[in-house]
Protein backbone atom coordinates (compact mmCIF):
# COMPACT_ATOMS: atom_id res chain seq x y z
CA UNK A 1 0.00 0.00 0.00
CA UNK A 2 2.91 2.27 0.84
CA UNK A 3 4.31 1.76 -2.68
CA UNK A 4 1.02 2.79 -4.24
CA UNK A 5 0.81 5.93 -2.15
CA UNK A 6 4.39 6.83 -3.04
CA UNK A 7 3.63 6.24 -6.70
CA UNK A 8 0.61 8.55 -6.56
CA UNK A 9 2.50 11.25 -4.68
CA UNK A 10 5.33 11.08 -7.19
CA UNK A 11 2.93 11.31 -10.14
CA UNK A 12 1.28 14.40 -8.67
CA UNK A 13 4.29 16.15 -7.27
CA UNK A 14 4.63 18.67 -10.09
CA UNK A 15 0.93 19.39 -10.44
CA UNK A 16 -0.32 22.77 -9.21
CA UNK A 17 -1.52 22.73 -5.64
CA UNK A 18 -5.24 23.46 -6.09
CA UNK A 19 -8.39 22.00 -4.45
CA UNK A 20 -9.35 20.29 -7.75
CA UNK A 21 -6.01 18.58 -8.07
CA UNK A 22 -6.02 17.50 -4.44
CA UNK A 23 -9.50 16.10 -4.87
CA UNK A 24 -8.43 14.19 -7.97
CA UNK A 25 -5.47 12.78 -6.06
CA UNK A 26 -7.66 11.69 -3.15
CA UNK A 27 -10.24 10.07 -5.43
CA UNK A 28 -7.62 8.21 -7.46
CA UNK A 29 -5.94 7.11 -4.25
CA UNK A 30 -9.27 5.81 -2.98
CA UNK A 31 -9.88 3.82 -6.16
CA UNK A 32 -6.38 2.37 -6.10
CA UNK A 33 -6.71 1.46 -2.46
CA UNK A 34 -10.05 -0.30 -3.10
CA UNK A 35 -8.62 -2.21 -6.02
CA UNK A 36 -5.54 -3.17 -4.03
CA UNK A 37 -7.61 -4.44 -1.09
CA UNK A 38 -9.76 -6.56 -3.37
CA UNK A 39 -6.77 -8.03 -5.20
CA UNK A 40 -5.21 -8.95 -1.86
CA UNK A 41 -8.52 -10.45 -0.73
CA UNK A 42 -8.53 -12.52 -3.94
CA UNK A 43 -5.27 -14.00 -2.77
CA UNK A 44 -2.76 -12.09 -4.91
CA UNK A 45 0.68 -11.42 -3.48
CA UNK A 46 1.43 -7.87 -2.41
CA UNK A 47 3.84 -7.35 -5.31
CA UNK A 48 1.41 -8.65 -7.88
CA UNK A 49 -1.39 -6.49 -6.47
CA UNK A 50 0.77 -3.35 -6.52
CA UNK A 51 1.88 -4.18 -10.07
CA UNK A 52 -1.70 -4.57 -11.30
CA UNK A 53 -2.90 -1.39 -9.61
CA UNK A 54 -0.05 0.69 -11.01
CA UNK A 55 -0.31 -0.78 -14.52
CA UNK A 56 -4.02 0.03 -14.60
CA UNK A 57 -3.62 3.53 -13.25
CA UNK A 58 -3.51 5.26 -16.63
CA UNK A 59 -2.12 8.57 -17.74
CA UNK A 60 -2.12 11.82 -15.81
CA UNK A 61 -2.38 13.93 -18.95
CA UNK A 62 -6.00 12.84 -19.10
CA UNK A 63 -6.57 14.33 -15.66
CA UNK A 64 -4.73 17.58 -16.46
CA UNK A 65 -6.84 17.98 -19.57
CA UNK A 66 -10.17 17.58 -17.84
CA UNK A 67 -9.13 19.75 -14.89
CA UNK A 68 -8.27 22.54 -17.29
CA UNK A 69 -4.63 22.64 -16.33
CA UNK A 70 -3.32 21.64 -19.74
CA UNK A 71 -1.69 25.03 -19.86
CA UNK A 72 0.32 23.77 -16.94
CA UNK A 73 1.83 20.96 -18.96
CA UNK A 74 4.53 22.98 -20.72
CA UNK A 75 5.14 24.69 -17.43
CA UNK A 76 5.55 21.29 -15.90
CA UNK A 77 8.73 20.75 -17.83
CA UNK A 78 10.10 24.05 -16.65
CA UNK A 79 8.91 23.24 -13.19
CA UNK A 80 10.82 19.98 -13.14
CA UNK A 81 13.93 21.85 -14.09
CA UNK A 82 13.35 24.36 -11.38
CA UNK A 83 12.73 21.59 -8.91
CA UNK A 84 16.08 20.21 -10.01
CA UNK A 85 17.24 16.68 -9.71
CA UNK A 86 15.96 14.32 -7.08
CA UNK A 87 18.28 13.67 -4.19
CA UNK A 88 18.81 10.02 -3.45
CA UNK A 89 18.33 8.62 -0.01
CA UNK A 90 22.00 7.59 0.28
CA UNK A 91 23.13 11.06 -0.69
CA UNK A 92 20.88 12.57 1.95
CA UNK A 93 22.14 10.19 4.62
CA UNK A 94 25.76 11.04 3.80
CA UNK A 95 24.96 14.73 3.76
CA UNK A 96 23.21 14.64 7.13
CA UNK A 97 26.01 12.59 8.62
CA UNK A 98 28.70 15.02 7.46
CA UNK A 99 26.67 18.07 8.39
CA UNK A 100 26.17 16.80 11.92
CA UNK A 101 29.84 16.01 12.30
CA UNK A 102 30.66 19.52 11.12
CA UNK A 103 28.16 20.87 13.64
CA UNK A 104 29.83 18.95 16.43
CA UNK A 105 33.31 20.12 15.40
CA UNK A 106 32.05 23.70 15.21
CA UNK A 107 30.54 23.57 18.70
CA UNK A 108 33.72 22.04 20.11
CA UNK A 109 35.65 24.89 18.47
CA UNK A 110 33.45 27.45 20.17
CA UNK A 111 33.96 25.61 23.46
CA UNK A 112 37.74 25.69 23.05
CA UNK A 113 37.66 29.45 22.44
CA UNK A 114 35.52 30.05 25.53
CA UNK A 115 37.66 27.96 27.91
CA UNK A 116 40.90 29.37 26.50
CA UNK A 117 40.73 32.26 28.98
CA UNK A 118 41.08 29.75 31.82
CA UNK A 119 44.77 29.43 30.89
CA UNK A 120 45.93 32.90 31.96
CA UNK A 121 43.56 33.01 34.95
CA UNK A 122 44.81 29.70 36.31
CA UNK A 123 48.47 30.32 35.58
CA UNK A 124 48.36 33.80 37.09
CA UNK A 125 47.19 32.38 40.43
CA UNK A 126 49.65 29.53 40.37
CA UNK A 127 52.40 32.01 39.53
CA UNK A 128 51.45 34.11 42.53
CA UNK A 129 51.75 31.12 44.84
CA UNK A 130 55.07 30.24 43.29
CA UNK A 131 56.47 33.67 43.98
CA UNK A 132 55.32 35.80 41.06
CA UNK A 133 57.28 34.15 38.28
CA UNK A 134 56.57 35.54 34.82
CA UNK A 135 57.18 32.03 33.48
CA UNK A 136 53.68 31.03 34.53
CA UNK A 137 52.18 34.10 32.88
CA UNK A 138 53.82 33.06 29.63
CA UNK A 139 52.51 29.52 29.97
CA UNK A 140 49.02 30.92 30.60
CA UNK A 141 49.09 33.02 27.46
CA UNK A 142 50.41 30.07 25.51
CA UNK A 143 47.51 27.89 26.68
CA UNK A 144 45.14 30.64 25.59
CA UNK A 145 46.66 30.85 22.14
CA UNK A 146 46.79 27.09 21.69
CA UNK A 147 43.13 26.73 22.58
CA UNK A 148 42.11 29.61 20.32
CA UNK A 149 44.15 28.05 17.53
CA UNK A 150 42.44 24.73 18.10
CA UNK A 151 39.09 26.53 17.97
CA UNK A 152 39.94 28.31 14.73
CA UNK A 153 41.20 25.05 13.26
CA UNK A 154 37.88 23.45 14.17
CA UNK A 155 35.99 26.29 12.42
CA UNK A 156 38.06 25.79 9.29
CA UNK A 157 37.58 22.00 9.29
CA UNK A 158 33.84 22.37 9.83
CA UNK A 159 33.66 24.93 7.03
CA UNK A 160 35.51 22.58 4.69
CA UNK A 161 33.13 19.74 5.49
CA UNK A 162 30.15 21.96 4.79
CA UNK A 163 31.66 23.30 1.58
CA UNK A 164 31.78 19.77 0.19
CA UNK A 165 27.99 19.71 0.27
CA UNK A 166 27.41 23.28 -0.85
CA UNK A 167 25.81 22.01 -4.06
CA UNK A 168 22.85 20.60 -2.11
CA UNK A 169 22.20 23.89 -0.40
CA UNK A 170 22.64 26.09 -3.48
CA UNK A 171 21.57 23.96 -6.44
CA UNK A 172 17.88 23.55 -7.05
CA UNK A 173 17.00 20.01 -6.09
CA UNK A 174 14.10 18.21 -4.51
CA UNK A 175 13.22 15.20 -2.43
CA UNK A 176 10.55 12.58 -3.04
CA UNK A 177 7.57 11.76 -0.89
CA UNK A 178 9.05 8.88 1.08
CA UNK A 179 12.23 10.83 1.79
CA UNK A 180 10.19 13.78 3.00
CA UNK A 181 8.26 11.45 5.24
CA UNK A 182 11.46 9.94 6.59
CA UNK A 183 12.97 13.36 7.28
CA UNK A 184 9.82 14.67 8.93
CA UNK A 185 9.71 11.69 11.21
CA UNK A 186 13.38 12.19 12.05
CA UNK A 187 12.98 15.91 12.74
CA UNK A 188 10.05 15.13 15.01
CA UNK A 189 11.93 12.55 17.07
CA UNK A 190 15.04 14.70 17.25
CA UNK A 191 13.03 17.78 18.15
CA UNK A 192 11.99 16.22 21.45
CA UNK A 193 15.48 15.08 22.25
CA UNK A 194 17.21 18.29 21.26
CA UNK A 195 14.83 20.73 22.85
CA UNK A 196 15.86 19.03 26.11
CA UNK A 197 19.53 19.43 25.19
CA UNK A 198 18.92 23.09 24.39
CA UNK A 199 17.24 23.69 27.74
CA UNK A 200 20.12 22.00 29.56
CA UNK A 201 22.49 24.26 27.61
CA UNK A 202 20.64 27.40 28.66
CA UNK A 203 20.44 26.20 32.26
CA UNK A 204 24.18 25.53 32.31
CA UNK A 205 24.84 29.04 31.06
CA UNK A 206 22.77 30.44 33.89
CA UNK A 207 24.17 28.03 36.50
CA UNK A 208 27.76 28.74 35.50
CA UNK A 209 27.79 31.65 37.94
CA UNK A 210 27.01 29.44 40.95
CA UNK A 211 30.57 28.13 41.60
CA UNK A 212 31.95 31.69 41.54
CA UNK A 213 29.45 32.88 44.13
CA UNK A 214 29.96 29.90 46.42
CA UNK A 215 33.72 29.64 46.11
CA UNK A 216 34.43 33.36 46.47
CA UNK A 217 32.52 33.38 49.74
CA UNK A 218 34.86 30.87 51.33
CA UNK A 219 37.28 33.17 53.05
CA UNK A 220 40.19 30.79 53.55
CA UNK A 221 42.43 30.65 50.51
CA UNK A 222 39.82 32.85 48.83
CA UNK A 223 42.15 33.79 46.01
CA UNK A 224 42.61 30.18 44.87
CA UNK A 225 38.93 29.37 45.20
CA UNK A 226 37.99 32.47 43.26
CA UNK A 227 40.28 31.38 40.45
CA UNK A 228 38.81 27.88 40.39
CA UNK A 229 35.34 29.48 40.46
CA UNK A 230 35.99 31.67 37.46
CA UNK A 231 37.56 28.79 35.54
CA UNK A 232 34.52 26.65 36.29
CA UNK A 233 32.33 29.50 35.08
CA UNK A 234 33.95 29.43 31.67
CA UNK A 235 33.96 25.64 31.46
CA UNK A 236 30.29 25.30 32.45
CA UNK A 237 29.14 28.21 30.28
CA UNK A 238 31.26 26.74 27.48
CA UNK A 239 29.53 23.39 27.76
CA UNK A 240 26.17 25.18 27.79
CA UNK A 241 26.98 27.13 24.62
CA UNK A 242 28.33 23.93 23.03
CA UNK A 243 25.05 22.15 23.71
CA UNK A 244 22.95 25.03 22.37
CA UNK A 245 24.95 25.38 19.16
CA UNK A 246 25.11 21.64 18.59
CA UNK A 247 21.39 21.09 19.10
CA UNK A 248 20.55 23.82 16.59
CA UNK A 249 23.14 22.72 14.06
CA UNK A 250 22.11 19.08 14.33
CA UNK A 251 18.67 19.66 12.86
CA UNK A 252 19.35 22.51 10.49
CA UNK A 253 20.28 20.29 7.54
CA UNK A 254 17.19 18.08 7.75
CA UNK A 255 14.92 21.11 8.04
CA UNK A 256 16.67 22.75 5.13
CA UNK A 257 16.09 19.67 2.99
CA UNK A 258 12.40 19.63 3.84
CA UNK A 259 12.11 23.16 2.49
CA UNK A 260 13.51 22.13 -0.89
CA UNK A 261 10.20 21.21 -2.48
CA UNK A 262 8.29 24.11 -3.95
CA UNK A 263 5.07 25.04 -2.20
CA UNK A 264 3.29 25.71 -5.52
CA UNK A 265 3.12 22.03 -6.34
CA UNK A 266 1.53 19.05 -4.69
CA UNK A 267 5.02 17.80 -3.85
CA UNK A 268 5.53 20.83 -1.64
CA UNK A 269 2.13 20.39 -0.08
CA UNK A 270 3.26 17.52 2.08
CA UNK A 271 6.31 19.30 3.33
CA UNK A 272 4.50 22.47 4.24
CA UNK A 273 1.62 20.96 6.13
CA UNK A 274 3.81 18.49 7.93
CA UNK A 275 6.54 20.77 9.08
CA UNK A 276 5.12 24.25 9.33
CA UNK A 277 3.18 23.61 12.51
CA UNK A 278 6.09 22.09 14.32
CA UNK A 279 8.77 24.37 13.04
CA UNK A 280 6.69 27.44 13.63
CA UNK A 281 8.79 30.48 14.07
CA UNK A 282 12.09 28.66 13.97
CA UNK A 283 11.74 28.74 10.21
CA UNK A 284 13.02 32.28 9.97
CA UNK A 285 16.75 32.63 10.32
CA UNK A 286 16.41 35.59 12.60
CA UNK A 287 14.71 33.66 15.41
CA UNK A 288 17.05 30.71 15.13
CA UNK A 289 19.96 32.87 16.25
CA UNK A 290 17.94 34.47 19.02
CA UNK A 291 19.04 32.32 21.95
CA UNK A 292 22.74 32.19 21.09
CA UNK A 293 22.62 35.98 20.78
CA UNK A 294 20.97 36.34 24.17
CA UNK A 295 23.59 34.06 25.70
CA UNK A 296 26.31 36.15 24.14
CA UNK A 297 24.77 39.42 25.37
CA UNK A 298 24.34 37.94 28.83
CA UNK A 299 27.98 36.87 29.08
CA UNK A 300 29.30 40.13 27.63
CA UNK A 301 27.22 42.38 29.88
CA UNK A 302 27.99 40.28 32.92
CA UNK A 303 31.72 40.31 32.36
CA UNK A 304 31.86 44.00 31.57
CA UNK A 305 29.83 45.07 34.59
CA UNK A 306 30.47 42.15 36.94
CA UNK A 307 26.96 42.73 38.25
CA UNK A 308 26.11 39.03 38.24
CA UNK A 309 23.41 39.59 40.82
CA UNK A 310 21.37 41.66 38.35
CA UNK A 311 22.33 40.49 34.87
CA UNK A 312 20.47 37.18 35.17
CA UNK A 313 17.34 39.29 34.66
CA UNK A 314 18.25 39.16 30.95
CA UNK A 315 16.89 35.59 30.82
CA UNK A 316 13.29 36.16 31.96
CA UNK A 317 13.11 39.33 29.87
CA UNK A 318 14.50 37.47 26.86
CA UNK A 319 11.95 34.70 27.39
CA UNK A 320 9.02 37.12 27.27
CA UNK A 321 10.52 38.94 24.30
CA UNK A 322 10.91 35.64 22.46
CA UNK A 323 7.20 34.83 22.71
CA UNK A 324 6.32 38.29 21.44
CA UNK A 325 8.71 37.95 18.52
CA UNK A 326 7.34 34.51 17.62
CA UNK A 327 3.80 35.86 17.54
CA UNK A 328 4.86 38.89 15.51
CA UNK A 329 6.68 36.75 12.96
CA UNK A 330 3.70 34.39 12.64
CA UNK A 331 1.30 37.26 12.10
CA UNK A 332 3.60 38.88 9.57
CA UNK A 333 3.83 35.60 7.70
CA UNK A 334 0.07 35.10 7.69
CA UNK A 335 -0.47 38.62 6.38
CA UNK A 336 2.18 37.89 3.81
CA UNK A 337 -0.32 35.51 2.21
CA UNK A 338 1.25 32.21 3.12
Amino acid at each position, binding site marked *: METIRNYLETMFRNMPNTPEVRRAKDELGQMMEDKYSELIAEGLSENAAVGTVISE*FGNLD*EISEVLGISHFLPARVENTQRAGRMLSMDEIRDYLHDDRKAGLILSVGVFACIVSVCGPILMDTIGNYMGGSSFFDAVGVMILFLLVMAGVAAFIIAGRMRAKWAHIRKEPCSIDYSTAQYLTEMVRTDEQRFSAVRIVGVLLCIASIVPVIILSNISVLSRLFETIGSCLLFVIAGIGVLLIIFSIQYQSAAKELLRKNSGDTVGGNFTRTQTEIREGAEKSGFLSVYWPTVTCVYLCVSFLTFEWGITWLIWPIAGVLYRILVLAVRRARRNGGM
Partner: protein
Amino acid sequence: MAGISSDIIRGYNDTMILYLLLDRPSYGYEISRQIRLMTEEKYVIKETTLYSAFTRMERNGFIVSFTMEAETGKRRTYYRITEQGRAYYREKCEEWELTKDVVERFISVDGRRFLPGESR
Protein backbone atom coordinates in the same frame (compact mmCIF):
# COMPACT_ATOMS: atom_id res chain seq x y z
CA MET B 1 -6.77 -11.33 -30.94
CA ALA B 2 -6.28 -7.61 -31.25
CA GLY B 3 -6.86 -5.58 -28.11
CA ILE B 4 -9.63 -3.07 -27.84
CA SER B 5 -9.02 0.26 -29.56
CA SER B 6 -8.93 3.02 -26.98
CA ASP B 7 -9.95 5.57 -29.63
CA ILE B 8 -13.24 3.84 -30.27
CA ILE B 9 -14.05 2.90 -26.69
CA ARG B 10 -13.32 6.40 -25.43
CA GLY B 11 -16.54 7.74 -26.83
CA TYR B 12 -18.49 5.11 -24.91
CA ASN B 13 -16.93 5.24 -21.47
CA ASP B 14 -19.64 7.70 -20.45
CA THR B 15 -22.32 5.31 -21.71
CA MET B 16 -20.94 2.42 -19.64
CA ILE B 17 -20.66 4.52 -16.50
CA LEU B 18 -24.15 5.98 -16.89
CA TYR B 19 -25.58 2.50 -17.49
CA LEU B 20 -24.12 1.33 -14.18
CA LEU B 21 -25.60 4.36 -12.40
CA LEU B 22 -29.12 3.90 -13.83
CA ASP B 23 -30.44 1.87 -10.89
CA ARG B 24 -28.48 3.19 -7.95
CA PRO B 25 -25.60 5.50 -7.01
CA SER B 26 -22.14 3.98 -7.00
CA TYR B 27 -18.50 4.88 -6.41
CA GLY B 28 -15.26 4.78 -8.37
CA TYR B 29 -13.87 1.35 -7.76
CA GLU B 30 -17.28 -0.37 -7.81
CA ILE B 31 -17.91 1.02 -11.30
CA SER B 32 -14.52 -0.03 -12.61
CA ARG B 33 -15.07 -3.50 -11.12
CA GLN B 34 -18.51 -3.82 -12.77
CA ILE B 35 -17.07 -2.83 -16.14
CA ARG B 36 -14.37 -5.45 -15.81
CA LEU B 37 -16.82 -8.17 -14.78
CA MET B 38 -19.46 -7.36 -17.38
CA THR B 39 -16.93 -7.34 -20.20
CA GLU B 40 -15.34 -10.56 -18.90
CA GLU B 41 -12.09 -8.61 -18.45
CA LYS B 42 -12.00 -7.70 -22.15
CA TYR B 43 -12.01 -4.07 -21.09
CA VAL B 44 -10.40 -2.71 -17.95
CA ILE B 45 -10.95 1.01 -17.49
CA LYS B 46 -7.95 3.00 -16.25
CA GLU B 47 -8.34 4.97 -13.03
CA THR B 48 -7.43 8.25 -14.69
CA THR B 49 -9.92 7.63 -17.51
CA LEU B 50 -12.66 6.93 -15.01
CA TYR B 51 -11.92 10.00 -12.93
CA SER B 52 -11.74 12.23 -16.02
CA ALA B 53 -15.14 10.91 -17.11
CA PHE B 54 -16.62 11.62 -13.67
CA THR B 55 -15.27 15.17 -13.66
CA ARG B 56 -16.41 15.89 -17.20
CA MET B 57 -19.91 14.45 -16.69
CA GLU B 58 -20.34 16.23 -13.39
CA ARG B 59 -19.46 19.50 -15.07
CA ASN B 60 -22.02 18.78 -17.82
CA GLY B 61 -24.66 18.02 -15.19
CA PHE B 62 -25.08 14.34 -16.10
CA ILE B 63 -24.08 13.12 -12.66
CA VAL B 64 -23.75 14.61 -9.18
CA SER B 65 -21.27 13.54 -6.55
CA PHE B 66 -21.87 13.26 -2.83
CA THR B 67 -19.99 11.84 0.11
CA MET B 68 -21.39 8.88 1.98
CA GLU B 69 -20.14 6.42 4.51
CA ALA B 70 -19.86 2.90 3.19
CA GLU B 71 -20.90 -0.15 5.23
CA THR B 72 -17.30 -0.47 6.34
CA GLY B 73 -17.42 3.04 7.80
CA LYS B 74 -15.15 4.42 5.10
CA ARG B 75 -16.08 7.78 3.59
CA ARG B 76 -16.42 7.59 -0.16
CA THR B 77 -17.44 9.83 -3.03
CA TYR B 78 -20.56 8.41 -4.66
CA TYR B 79 -22.05 9.45 -7.99
CA ARG B 80 -25.74 9.71 -8.87
CA ILE B 81 -27.23 10.07 -12.35
CA THR B 82 -29.41 13.12 -13.10
CA GLU B 83 -32.40 13.47 -15.44
CA GLN B 84 -30.10 15.18 -17.88
CA GLY B 85 -27.75 12.23 -17.58
CA ARG B 86 -30.54 9.76 -18.38
CA ALA B 87 -31.47 11.77 -21.47
CA TYR B 88 -27.82 11.83 -22.53
CA TYR B 89 -27.60 8.07 -21.97
CA ARG B 90 -30.61 7.40 -24.25
CA GLU B 91 -29.07 9.67 -26.85
CA LYS B 92 -25.79 7.74 -26.70
CA CYS B 93 -27.62 4.42 -27.02
CA GLU B 94 -29.33 5.61 -30.20
CA GLU B 95 -26.05 6.94 -31.47
CA TRP B 96 -24.43 3.55 -30.91
CA GLU B 97 -27.22 1.69 -32.68
CA LEU B 98 -26.70 3.91 -35.68
CA THR B 99 -22.90 3.63 -35.54
CA LYS B 100 -23.04 -0.12 -35.25
CA ASP B 101 -25.50 -0.33 -38.11
CA VAL B 102 -23.28 1.78 -40.35
CA VAL B 103 -19.95 0.16 -39.51
CA GLU B 104 -21.21 -3.40 -39.67
CA ARG B 105 -22.13 -2.99 -43.29
CA PHE B 106 -18.43 -2.89 -44.03
CA ILE B 107 -17.28 -5.75 -41.81
CA SER B 108 -16.30 -9.06 -43.31
CA VAL B 109 -14.69 -12.03 -41.63
CA ASP B 110 -13.01 -14.61 -43.89
CA GLY B 111 -14.81 -13.20 -46.91
CA ARG B 112 -18.21 -13.74 -45.33
CA ARG B 113 -20.37 -10.65 -45.20
CA PHE B 114 -23.06 -9.87 -42.68
CA LEU B 115 -26.23 -8.04 -43.30
CA PRO B 116 -27.41 -5.65 -40.63
CA GLY B 117 -29.44 -7.45 -38.01
CA GLU B 118 -28.25 -10.87 -39.08
CA SER B 119 -26.78 -12.92 -36.23
CA ARG B 120 -23.39 -14.56 -36.62
